[in-house]
C-alpha cells in the first residue's frame, strides 16, 4: 500500500482498530439482546426493540449528537465512565462506541433471526438431559446460531468501517485518535480535486470490507455445514 500516505495509513489502522473493538465488545450484548428479544416475553420488550433500532432510523448526525449529550465529558454516562477511568470523549474508544452503537441494530437483527430459526425442541432436549438454561444456550443454541452470529459480527464490522456521521459528531476527527477512514474520505471530498485521494481510500475500505464479507461467508458456511452435518 505504498500509494497511501502516512496519514492515510494511520486512518486505516485506526479504522481497523475501532471497528474490531466496536464489534468485539458489542457482540456479547448483541447476542444477549437478540436472545432476549427472540425468546423472552417481558414488559418493555418492544421498548428495548425500538431502542436498539434507533440508530438505524435516526440520521447519524442526530445519533452522534445524542451520544455527545450522554457520553460527552459533561454527559451523565460520560461522567460515570470517567469516574471508572474510561474516557471516551475524543478518544478512539469513543469512535468505537459510536461505531458499535450504529452497528448494533444490524448485529442484533442478524443474530435474532438465527435464534428464531433454532427449534426450541432441541433446547428442550438439552434441558431434559440436565443442562441448565445457560448451559443449553452455550452448548446448543450458540453453536447452532454461530453462522448468524458470524454474519452479524462481520456485518457490524463492515458497518463500523463505514460509519461516519455519528462518529465525527461525537468524537470529532482528530488524526491518530478519531480520524477514521470515512472521515478522511469525507475531508477529501470537500475540497475541489480531492476525488483521487478519496477514491484511493474508498478502494481500500472496499477491499477490507469485501475481505471481511468473504471471510464471513466462508466461516459461516463452514459453521452451517457443521450444524447441518457436513
Amino acid at each position, binding site marked *: 500500500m505504498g500509494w497511501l500516505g502516512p496519514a492515510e495509513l494511520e486512518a486505516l489502522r485506526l479504522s481497523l482498530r475501532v471497528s474490531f473493538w466496536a464489534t468485539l465488545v458489542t457482540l456479547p450484548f448483541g447476542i444477549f439482546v437478540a436472545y432476549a428479544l427472540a425468546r423472552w416475553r417481558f414488559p418493555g420488550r418492544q421498548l428495548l426493540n425500538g431502542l436498539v433500532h434507533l440508530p438505524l432510523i435516526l440520521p447519524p448526525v442526530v445519533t452522534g449528537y445524542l451520544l455527545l449529550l450522554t457520553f460527552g*465529558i459533561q454527559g451523565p454516562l460520560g461522567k460515570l465512565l470517567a469516574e471508572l477511568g474510561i474516557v471516551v470523549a*475524543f478518544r478512539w474508544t469513543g469512535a468505537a462506541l459510536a461505531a458499535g452503537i450504529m452497528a448494533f441494530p444490524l448485529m442484533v437483527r442478524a443474530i435474532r433471526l438465527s435464534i428464531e430459526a433454532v427449534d426450541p425442541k432441541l433446547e428442550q432436549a438439552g434441558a431434559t438431559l440436565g443442562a441448565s438454561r445457560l448451559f443449553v444456550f452455550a452448548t446448543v443454541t450458540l453453536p447452532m446460531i454461530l453462522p448468524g452470529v458470524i454474519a452479524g459480527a462481520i456485518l457490524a464490522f463492515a458497518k463500523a468501517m463505514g460509519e461516519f456521521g455519528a462518529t*465525527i*459528531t461525537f468524537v470529532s*476527527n*482528530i488524526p491518530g485518535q478519531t480520524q477514521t477512514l470515512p472521515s478522511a474520505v469525507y475531508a477529501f471530498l*470537500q*475540497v475541489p480535486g480531492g476525488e483521487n485521494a478519496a477514491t484511493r481510500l474508498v478502494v481500500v475500505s472496499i477491499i477490507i470490507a469485501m475481505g471481511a464479507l468473504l471471510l464471513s461467508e466462508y466461516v459461516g458456511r463452514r459453521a452451517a455445514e457443521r450444524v447441518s452435518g457436513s
Partner: protein
Amino acid sequence: ASEVLVFAAASLKNALDKIGSDFERRTGHEVTVSYAASSVLARQIQLGAPADVFISANVDWMDVLQDQDQIKANTRVDLLGNRLVLIGGPDQTGVGEIRADMDLSAALDGGHLAMALVDAVPAGIYGKAALQNLALWEEVQSQIAQTDNVRAALALVATGAAPLGIVYRSDAQVEERVQVLGTFPSDLHLPIIYPAAVTTWGRPEAQAFLTYLQSGPAREVFADQGFALPGS
C-alpha cells in the same frame, strides 16, 4: 410566474428562507432552495443539476464551476462575508480582539479546540490560516477537534465537550450555551466570501433573484443573521 431553483450552502438556510418568501411575495416567482454542503451542490451542478442560482460558502467551488463554464461568469458576485470568532462556555472570560500574545493553551487547559475540518471545510481552513498567522497553530495543533461542519464544532462547545471553539459569528450568536470570547482580525485569513452566480442554464428569473439578494431588504436580513456585508 415562474420558478427559481437555488442551490445554497446550508449555513444560509435561515436567511434565505426569509428572503425567498419575500421575493415570492413581491414577484410571484416561486423560489425553491436546496441546502447542502457547498461541495455537494457544486458537484451536482457539475453533473447537470437543474439549479438556476448557486450560492457557495467559499470561493474555491465557485472557481471550479466558473472554470468549467457552468456559471455565467458575469453574474458572479461576492454576496456575503462573515467573521471568525472564538467561542467558549459561559464561565469563560472574553478577550475582545484576538492577538498573537493570547495564551490559547492556558485557556484550553488541556481540553480541545473545536473547529470544522481544517483542510476541507471553509471555516476550518480560515481558522487554521488565522492560527498560523498568529503563530498559535503549532501550539494547539494537537488539541484541535475537527468536525464535518461548523455547527458540529459549535455543539462540542455548547455541550461542554470542548472548552473553546472557532466558528462563524453568524453561528455563534444564537447558541445560548456559548459566548463569543473574541473575534479574529479579518486580515489573518483569506477573506470569508460567499460568492453567488447564475448557472449557465439558469432561467431569466434567476438574475432577478440574484439582484434581489443584493437589495436593501435582503441585506437587512443577512445582517440580522450575523453575516458581514461586503462594501459596508
